[in-house]
């Protein structure tokens, strides 16, 4: 309100009347607050209201953005790579070294003449030489240091204070090995078996194949047939096998060991001779072509396990993927487990890829509940989809056996047929139901001639493998929450609507190349891929001299 003054400073009538100074205060008068003052909210109210409004909108936007960002990071995280995880992604190197870089490492500043080490500075070469001399009868400790020949003798004469310690070590070594032989350290049975499995079964086995040892290689070297009754017991040193407290104890221990030896999935079942090949036995002449149908008596239980192939490469079939990462790792598990079981005193025989089998692997996975049967002729595991390469160890331990499962995968196969559509050679059946009878069972029969036809013509270095069906299968997915929801929800839904919905999304949201596109260019294909290959397999991005004459049409 004005002070009763106009712009010119003159007081006019109106301003005189309205000047509060000219009012006579009446008793009834009271200071009515200005109307706008009453309605004007508190300053703090306004800012809190605005804060909530703006903040609410900002928070809602940030929620959606955060959901998107979190989703993306989860999709790309190391943990999604079932069977591989952080290690293979390089995620174990999580410490940022850059702030701590220095020019010279601690203790690496020379303080005297820098000399190269000599052979005899390596204690194990000294031990080896001494023990060799003792064994050959050239020297023994009673002859004394002066008579110790060779370079090792010179070494200990140069460092005479070390000599008595070495002699003492050798004495103690002898005694402790005697104790072990006499069974004094039963309490360490398992850790010893574990060590021996890795050392003797993994690192230092003596025959052809690196791991596991294969009876065929020994037969080739020696020309002597080795039946399973001999081979399976070859590393058993105990007179009596260790007795398990119960079949449950046995199963629990062996499964834990299998994981420690590097497998992703493991189950144990009764050995089923219906799925053993006739006329096939490694270590016998001609691979056992005359073996007939004999089933070795000690083949009572079978431990089946498997690992996936590396995910990003499998999605880039054909030219960018391989079976050998999974083969190698499942072979490692097979070899180590075989040796471990031998160490406990039981027979063990590894069945392993690429072709070292007397049995069909898949049915054993079905019987033990690891997997279900699928359209493509391979087994499907809930955790890994079709992306599983199995191996096994046959033994005679009494285990508690695992039972089969039903997660309605085969029912999904009836509707899905994505693998059949993507197969470059048309080897996978399009029939709705598995109607072909194969050796007494109903199957979707894979035409292995057509399948190999693609292998032979395909763009792999050894003309082996295609693996398109594995990559495009909707079940072969990494481990993220969206796939977990599908995996848990779909088998529990009695109406099949979840499966229909998932299938509709899979077929319409994703671009899967048609079969012919995967083929080599000289056959009319485009060498297409489902996912684009990862950067570390794109030779043209790393090396000189490779001209990129192709395009990547896959998802990335």
């Amino acid at each position, binding site marked *: 309100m004005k002070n009763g003054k106009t712009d010119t400073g003159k007081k006019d009538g109106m301003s005189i009347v309205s000047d509060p100074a000219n009012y006579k205060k009446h008793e009834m008068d009271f200071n009515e607050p200005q109307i706008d003052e009453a309605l004007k909210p508190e300053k703090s109210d306004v800012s809190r209201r605005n804060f909530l409004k703006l903040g609410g909108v900002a928070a809602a936007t940030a929620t959606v953005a955060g959901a998107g960002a979190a989703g993306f990071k989860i999709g790309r995280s190391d943990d999604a790579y079932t069977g591989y995880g952080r290690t293979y992604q390089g995620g174990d190197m999580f410490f940022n070294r850059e702030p701590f870089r220095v020019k010279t490492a601690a203790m690496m500043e020379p303080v005297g003449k820098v000399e190269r080490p000599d052979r005899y500075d390596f204690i194990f070469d000294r031990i080896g030489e001494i023990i060799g001399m003792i064994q050959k009868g050239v020297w023994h400790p009673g002859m004394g240091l002066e008579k110790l020949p060779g370079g090792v003798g010179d070494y200990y004469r140069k460092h005479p204070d070390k000599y008595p310690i070495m002699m003492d070590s050798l004495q103690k070594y002898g005694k402790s090995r005697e104790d072990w032989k006499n069974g004094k350290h039963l309490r360490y049975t398992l850790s010893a078996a574990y060590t021996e499995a890795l050392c003797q079964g993994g690192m230092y086995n003596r025959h052809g194949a690196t791991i596991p040892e294969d009876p065929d290689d020994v037969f080739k070297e020696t020309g002597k047939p080795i039946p399973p009754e001999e081979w399976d017991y070859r590393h058993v040193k105990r007179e009596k096998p260790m007795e398990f407290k119960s079949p449950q104890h046995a199963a629990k221990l062996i499964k834990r060991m299998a994981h420690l030896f590097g497998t992703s999935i493991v189950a144990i079942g009764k050995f089923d001779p219906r799925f053993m090949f006739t006329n096939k036995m490694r270590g016998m002449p001609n691979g056992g072509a005359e073996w007939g149908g004999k089933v070795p008596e000690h083949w009572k239980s079978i431990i089946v396990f498997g690992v996936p192939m590396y995910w990003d490469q499998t999605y880039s079939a054909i030219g960018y993927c391989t079976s050998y990462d999974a083969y190698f790792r499942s072979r490692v598990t097979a070899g180590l487990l075989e040796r471990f079981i031998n160490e406990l005193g039981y027979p063990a025989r590894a069945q392993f890829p690429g072709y070292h089998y007397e049995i069909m692997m898949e049915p054993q996975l079905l019987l033990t509940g690891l997997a279900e049967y699928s359209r493509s002729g391979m087994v499907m595991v809930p955790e890994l989809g079709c992306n599983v390469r199995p191996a096994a160890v046959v033994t005679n331990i009494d285990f508690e056996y695992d039972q089969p499962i039903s997660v309605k995968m085969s029912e999904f196969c009836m509707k899905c047929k994505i693998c059949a559509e*993507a197969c470059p050679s048309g080897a996978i059946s399009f*029939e709705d139901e598995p109607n072909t009878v194969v050796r007494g069972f109903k199957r979707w029969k894979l035409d292995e001639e057509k399948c190999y036809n693609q292998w032979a013509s395909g763009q792999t270095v050894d003309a082996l493998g295609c693996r398109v069906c594995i990559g495009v299968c909707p079940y072969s997915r990494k481990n993220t929450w969206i796939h977990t929801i599908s995996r848990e929800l779909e088998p529990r839904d009695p109406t099949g609507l979840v499966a229909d919905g998932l299938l509709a999304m899979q077929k319409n949201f994703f671009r899967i190349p048609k079969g012919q596109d995967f083929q080599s260019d000289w056959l*009319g294909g485009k060498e297409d891929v489902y996912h684009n290959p990862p950067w570390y397999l794109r030779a043209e991005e790393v090396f000189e001299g490779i001209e990129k004459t192709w395009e990547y049409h896959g998802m990335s």
Partner: protein
Amino acid sequence: MSDFAKRIVVLLIPATLALAWVGGEMRKQGEMGRRLSHISADITQVRQLDQDLYQARRKSTGDTLFITSDSYPSYGGPLTVATAVDKQKTILYTAILESTDTRSYLEKVVGFGILNVYTGVRIDQMPKLDGISGATISSTAITRGIEASANKIGVAEFGMPAIGKEDAAATPETAKLLLIVFVFAAALFLVYKDLPRKKQLRAGLLLFSVVTMGFLFGTLFSMSTVVSFISGTWLEGLASYSAMLCMVLAIVTFLVTRKKVYCTYICPFGAVQEGLGKITGCKGPEKYPWMEWISRFFVWAILVAALYFQTPSDAMYEPFSKAFNFIGSGILYGLTILIVIASLVIKRPWCNLFCPASSIFFYLRFARKAFAPKSTADISNLPLHAVFNEKSKKEAG
């Protein structure tokens, strides 16, 4: 614009389309040989032996190949497949040469691996594909086309008996045609009969149309139908005439009633937009003449291109099938999403801004006015209350 000029313009439009079609026909000749060698990089030295029978050589092995093509009615028109057979009667390659179906629809079907089923098969041991569900019009066209072309080679080169051509696969075709007729009849009924609760009846008819013509049967007509109609490919046989019937009836009802009956009472896409707009109660967009003219020019250009290149399915830029059947490219997908969201903000955005049907109806109206007597044309276009105002305006001077 004078009347004479208007009539010239009206006649120019179909003239340009006819020219485009003729050019397209001329382009097609002599392409066959080139097309056949594209079936595989391994095929070379294609030469014609007879009508539809060619001989070629395999680059890799030097073997002789026989190639034929055959057509079979498919969704939007005939679908042409080619089969290459070697001297041992084995099918080496199959390919689709020509099709009036949309590329992505075909990819869905051809990704079906149907073509691969025949590779390596002997033509006297053709497989039976009865155990497969989900066979569609297109996949049936492909299998029948391959069977027919393989048989052609068998008859011509290997003395095999000829098999009779089977009838086109039946889908619920009669049901679709009857449905379309019923819907148009109901719409006309609503237009002419003064009924109570007309708004609710119209809403009901639109909902019915969305469910049946939209999702269930997908019988909307689109630009590809228009192109197919004009270029006459339907004369060689269509597997499904429903889209064509829909288009014809839409034009006929427009000419008869002078109202866009199809748009207002039937079109499922328009119904979806209107329904969404009802949620928010939004208004229609402001239309400027330049926007309408750009849209009309675009429609004309697309027709010309599609007729010239003889690819009716490429003319289809409407997002109908993406919305209702998941078929269409990524761009149409983005467009569909934008239109659905825009429908919440503007009333009937596609109808008002982009739909080619408006342009076509505009052309028909323009043509009629150009050729019809003047006075009655003007007045009969107006709604009743405007007619009276017009008259009274004239009386008032």
